[in-house]
């Protein structure tokens, strides 16, 4: 409302100033306050530049990461060969002492540039052969750079990328010498190898996992019987007998599965590929160890698009590898979504009920206004404080009690007595409940009093009025609050670090084992993934592209949620504008 009137005044303001000029009365320069105005405007433009610069940086890096880049082979003046994707170039300042130590011609050039030197970062890969996977090359040391069409860029399951050439390949035991990247036999064999890998993973993770799960359950049954009835009781003896009886077939099944996995592995070993780096150092690895390979300087646009899309697909649909710096983020997406949904399930009813109490039921007086101030304040309490509370109260307090009552047989390994999905969701629910309360209260107060009075006058009870008249009209506002809470919750990391987020969760919180939803499990989170890959990994440079993509994903999710809130809010406003009494 105020905006409209402000506009009107602006308009009037402009009209009046035009009138002034028409009358040809000049305003004193001092009264115009031009320098101060420019300072104010400058501050605003700094803010705008900051936000757009930031988004540009993130999205540019995020969306260009998966583009297949050419591979340069650089011959240095020392004769050394460096092959890799040129990642970025920058000017950097050389220490004055370092400049003095250079050859006079180089030193003079750098002096002329004010001590700055241009350098390029190459992603060289081949960490297992050379001990590094990124290398800075100063421009003055470069003799020449070429882009030969036969150089391959290979993504591997282990040791990161490889840059070099294929020396030989063995397909089903038959050796093929110097095949190209597009050799159909090789491509076909690679696809078969990937399928075999999938099969092995399926056996090891799902089938053997099932057997292990059953064995563990038998063991726990024995332990529970021992704890409940004493180790010498007949119940415990029965449980032990049951374990012996049931574990026999399970073990047999395990042997069978292991043998099958072994058989596939043996086939796998007959399909190998020998890679050679640019200097000729060789490395042989199974074909299934390659994720993707392509001749980086010999790609058509279609190839590039294909690689780009397949990398995005891999990112969104697979598990991370190489200490989270490669592969995908599926478990993190899953964890983020599961945690946020769980949080909403808890925060929505609680927040709405509290707002209803404050707005519809409580006596409006000093106490309620104090409570309202406190609720507003809680929105400003640092999130880490909630994390501390969640750890101390939920995980160590409530969780340990639950363990002692229900999961005695698993102690001293905590089940609920440590960080987990449920505690993270509860903590974030506490963190976001003020958002929902404030939004719901606003929505409730926006429902005209006349409607309530009308309903009551017709004889509806208080609850009937709230349920049928107030809540439906307030619903869009409440939804906005809930969505904003989701956006806030999805972006929080600090409290989660304390209550259940881990860098690598072995199992998802939802799986095929009873009770299917495992609220006590720790989980992965996109935000923590960013922190972990950026700061805890071996080489932050190697993780950077991954972090940028993850960042894009996270900002994308949050922006979508915020946009939804904005759209719902504007709909709500329109609906109200149309139905004013």
């Amino acid at each position, binding site marked *: 409302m105020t905006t409209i009137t402000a506009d009107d005044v602006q308009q009037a303001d402009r009209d009046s100033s035009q009138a002034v000029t028409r009358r040809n009365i000049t305003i004193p320069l001092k009264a115009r306050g031009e320098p101060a105005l420019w300072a104010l405007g400058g501050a605003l433009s700094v803010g705008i530049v900051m936000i757009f610069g930031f988004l540009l940086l993130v999205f540019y890096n995020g969306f260009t990461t998966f583009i297949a880049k050419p591979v340069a082979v650089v011959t240095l003046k020392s004769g050394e060969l460096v092959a890799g994707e040129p990642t970025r170039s920058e000017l950097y300042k050389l220490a004055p002492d370092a400049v003095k130590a250079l050859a006079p011609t180089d030193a003079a050039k750098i002096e002329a540039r004010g001590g700055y030197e241009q350098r390029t970062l190459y992603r060289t890969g081949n960490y297992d052969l050379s001990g590094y996977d990124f290398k800075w090359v100063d421009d003055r040391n470069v003799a020449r750079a070429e882009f030969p069409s036969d150089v391959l860029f290979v993504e591997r399951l282990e040791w990161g990328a490889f840059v070099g050439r294929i020396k030989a390949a063995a397909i089903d035991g038959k050796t093929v010498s110097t095949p190209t990247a597009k050799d159909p036999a090789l491509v076909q064999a690679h696809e078969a190898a990937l399928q075999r890998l999938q099969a092995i993973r399926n056996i090891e993770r799902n089938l053997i996992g099932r057997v292990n799960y059953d064995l563990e359950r038998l063991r726990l049954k024995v332990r529970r019987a021992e704890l409940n009835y004493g180790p010498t009781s007949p119940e415990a003896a029965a449980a032990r007998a049951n374990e012996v009886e049931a574990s026999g077939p399970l073990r047999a099944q395990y042997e069978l599965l292991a043998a099958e996995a072994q058989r596939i592995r043996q086939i796998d070993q007959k399909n190998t590929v020998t890679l050679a780096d640019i200097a000729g150092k060789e490395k042989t690895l199974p074909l299934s160890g390659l994720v993707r390979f392509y001749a980086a300087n010999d790609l058509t646009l279609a190839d590039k698009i294909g690689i780009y899309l397949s990398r995005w697909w891999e990112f969104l649909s697979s598990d991370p590898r190489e200490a989270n710096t490669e592969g995908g983020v599926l478990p993190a997406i899953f964890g983020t979504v599961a945690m946020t949904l769980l949080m909403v399930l808890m925060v929505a009813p609680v927040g709405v009920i509290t707002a209803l109490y404050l707005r519809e039921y409580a006596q409006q007086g000093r106490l309620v206004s104090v409570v309202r101030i406190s609720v507003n304040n809680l929105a400003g309490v640092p999130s880490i*404080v909630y994390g501390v509370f969640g750890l101390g109260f939920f995980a160590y307090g409530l969780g340990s009690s639950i363990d002692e009552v229900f999961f005695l047989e698993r102690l001293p390994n905590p089940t609920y007595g440590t960080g987990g999905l449920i505690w993270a969701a509860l903590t974030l629910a506490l963190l976001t409940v003020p958002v929902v309360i404030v939004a719901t209260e606003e929505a409730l107060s926006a429902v005209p009093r006349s409607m309530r009075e009308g309903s009551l006058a017709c004889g509806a009870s208080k609850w009937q009025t709230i349920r049928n008249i107030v809540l439906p009209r307030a619903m869009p506002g409440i939804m906005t609050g809930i969505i904003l809470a989701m956006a806030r919750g999805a972006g929080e990391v600090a409290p989660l670090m304390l209550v259940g987020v881990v860098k690598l969760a072995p199992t998802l919180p939802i799986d095929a084992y009873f009770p299917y939803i495992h609220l006590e499990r720790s989980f992965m989170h996109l935000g923590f993934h960013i922190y972990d890959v950026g700061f805890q990994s071996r080489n932050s440079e190697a993780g950077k592209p991954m972090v940028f993509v993850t960042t894009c994903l996270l900002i994308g999710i949050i922006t979508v949620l915020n946009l939804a809130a904005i759209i719902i809010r504007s709909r709500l406003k329109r609906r109200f504008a149309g139905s004013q009494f």
Partner: protein
Amino acid sequence: MATDTSTASRQRVKSRVTRRSVLISDAIANWVIRIGGLGVILAVFGIMVFLVDVVRPLFSGAHLVGQHEVTLKGTSGRVLSELVDEYTTIIVSVEATGEVVVNDLGSGRLLKSNSFLTGDRKVTAFSSTLRGDDVAFGFDDGTLRLGRIKIFAEILSLANVPSGLTKLAGNTLTDGEAVYVPIENDQVRKLSVSVTLEEPQRIAPEGTALIAVDYRLGGTVERPTTSFVSIDANGAVRLSRLETKRNLLTGKEQTSLSSVELPSLPVGTDVASVLMTSQADQVYVAEKSGWVSRYDARDPSKAAVAERIRLTPEGVRLTTLGFLVGEQSIVAGGSDGSVNIFFRLPTPGAGTADGFALTKAHELAPQPAAIVAFDPSDRSKMFVTADAAGNIWVRHSTSEQTLLKLRTGATDISAVSLSPRENAVVAVAGHGKAFTFSMDAPHPETTLRTIFGKIWYENYPEASYTWQSSSGTDAFEPKFSLAPLIFGTVKAAFYSLMFAIPIALCGAIYTSQFLGGRVRGVVKPAMEMMASLPSVVLGFIAALILAPIVENWIGAVVLAFVCVPLSLFAGAYLWQLLPQPVAQRVGGGAKLLFVGASLVAGLYAAIHLAPLFEQVFFDGDFRAWTSGAGSSQPFMTLLFWPIAFVGLVIFIRTIPALSGSGRAGDDGAREFVRWLAMLALSLALAAGLAALSVWAGMDVRGSFVGTYVQRNTLVVGFAMGFAVIPIMYTIAEDALTAVPEHLRAASLSCGATPWQTAIRVILPTALSGIFAAVMIGLGRAVGETMIVVMAAGNTPIIDWNIFSGLRALSANIAVELPEAVKDGTLYRMLFLAALTLFIMTFVLNTIAELVRLRFRKRAAQL
């Protein structure tokens, strides 16, 4: 729903009685909502209560759980040393006669007795290691015997307990030598003692008694060394080392003893005791008079007295002297009941031979009578002292607090000991009386003073605020001062607000007062979009992308703070050159574009002038300059420039003749020239001021400018801006827009320009709302976690240097809490950090909220 209500109303018409189900559901809703609502509100306050509850034990000191007195059978009560097991079940006392007696502490029953005596030798000196289980006896014939008292604890299942045990006090049992204590899960703990002794070693010449000895085990696991220092009746001080070598071929162990004679004491020295370190590099000989001679024996062959110092005042005898765990603190007890702690610290100008000096670091509360016994804990800086009046005080060195004052009533205590788990104190007095005090002292190292005050820690030259919680060994002294963390929080918040306040508030004023509706409809959501950026992303960008760039281009970054304002003002003065009708026509978004262009021009200039700037102002290398290279005069000129400019403006205003108020300042060119002249004049003034202050010895480095590190406060402040600006901007903009329209309309219609209206009418009215915005922004900055974790370097230091790192409360919690042991001191300290944050933000937000409410009321009245 509509049909629902209509049927309900139809029924009511018929019966005029409200349906039962409606009444019930109404009652249920009533109760659920009331209970739910109140429950949430209570839960929210529960957070604070819970935090306080976790933190409280930090300040509770210690309390007595129980006490127990028993007479130990078979002991004389003149005890040199005593040793208690982990569970305070049995006590081993070393008698002055050289006997080692083992008793059950519950009943006093004698379990075992061993004698170290052979023949008619008399014990004249005794020492034990810190744990008390390795002992050394010196005899009157100049020989020395080493021994080892080991207490074994093993857990047996009930079935393995031998039969025929006799009952002791409570439910403990004994087979005559070992004690059996039933514990949970049908298990039994068996405690037994073994005493072994080695062959006598001759140290002093035949017939010369050893009057003092100290014994240490040192070296590594692979090559353990045993060393001891002894003083004989003639005042000869000997440093001896036993080395055990295993012959690789035969597997036989061979022990060799090597002794070095240190400079002997003057004749007639009344030796009280002797102390040495595990490395055998320092030897302290204490005299009863209170004098201590410190030998520097780092090179045993050249050992000499490095220092002679009185540890007690004149007339007060030194009664006990001993190390605390870690051998950095020396506890000296006097005959006047005083207990003081000394550190050996490098002290320039102390006049000692090795440059070190014993310095009194802690003066603890004195006891009413002379100190007679002392025992340190072997895992912390806790210790007990007993006095001649029968008082036993449990103390802690770091916190200087007396945890417990125990009273035995016995005036002849000869030994006291602190149990290995620090949960009991056992004292032995005459006639074999033993006093056992069980206590609970979970957090002896923390008091309000250690948390917020300056504390003198071991190895520190003076008292300081230090946070260092990680402990590699038991000997480590944990340093829990929240001061550097609170400082870090305040520093990060201060610098980020220095950056964020101008941008947020100026931006808000411009948006609400000088932008049209359509442009504002784009600008405001864009600024608010900043709020939805997750802070982990900001932290990542700041630390891994921004920090290296800033480090590389620091010259340009600093120059930007000069160039951007200059280019904006230059833009403004150039704008005034435009004919007024033209200038007036361009407003709103279009003008903002021009402003943006001049901003970009400023940045462009900063980047291109950076090398030159660095050359002229920072001696060619900014980072070297911050560490002290070159002169600070040019930079100080730069600092004084804006101050001089503002001073000049004010000065001119006060003199009407100069301000030229006679003519309407409508000549843009004149104004421009005047501005340039003012710039030049103020620059000259600033240069003069800078020269003057440099001449007076001022150097800006060391204050808020100092040595450059990559992850620094400048970067944190910038990144934190993203987190703080949107919320301040939104609240301030709302407050400015909420100023009633009639005020502005009145001002404009009276002929005021929009600028005059904004600054003289709108701003004063909205001031309280803007204050609230700043408070809330401050609260945000204080609590921000991920940015400081990632970009601040996490060094807990106290200095205002904008180019150094910091460690904030929030970051500290995030980094250390996952590894803290539940209910340990660190765990509770981190909860205290969280509570501090909670209180800080709660106070800030409450102030903001109250101010905002007042503003709303006032705005409604206008």
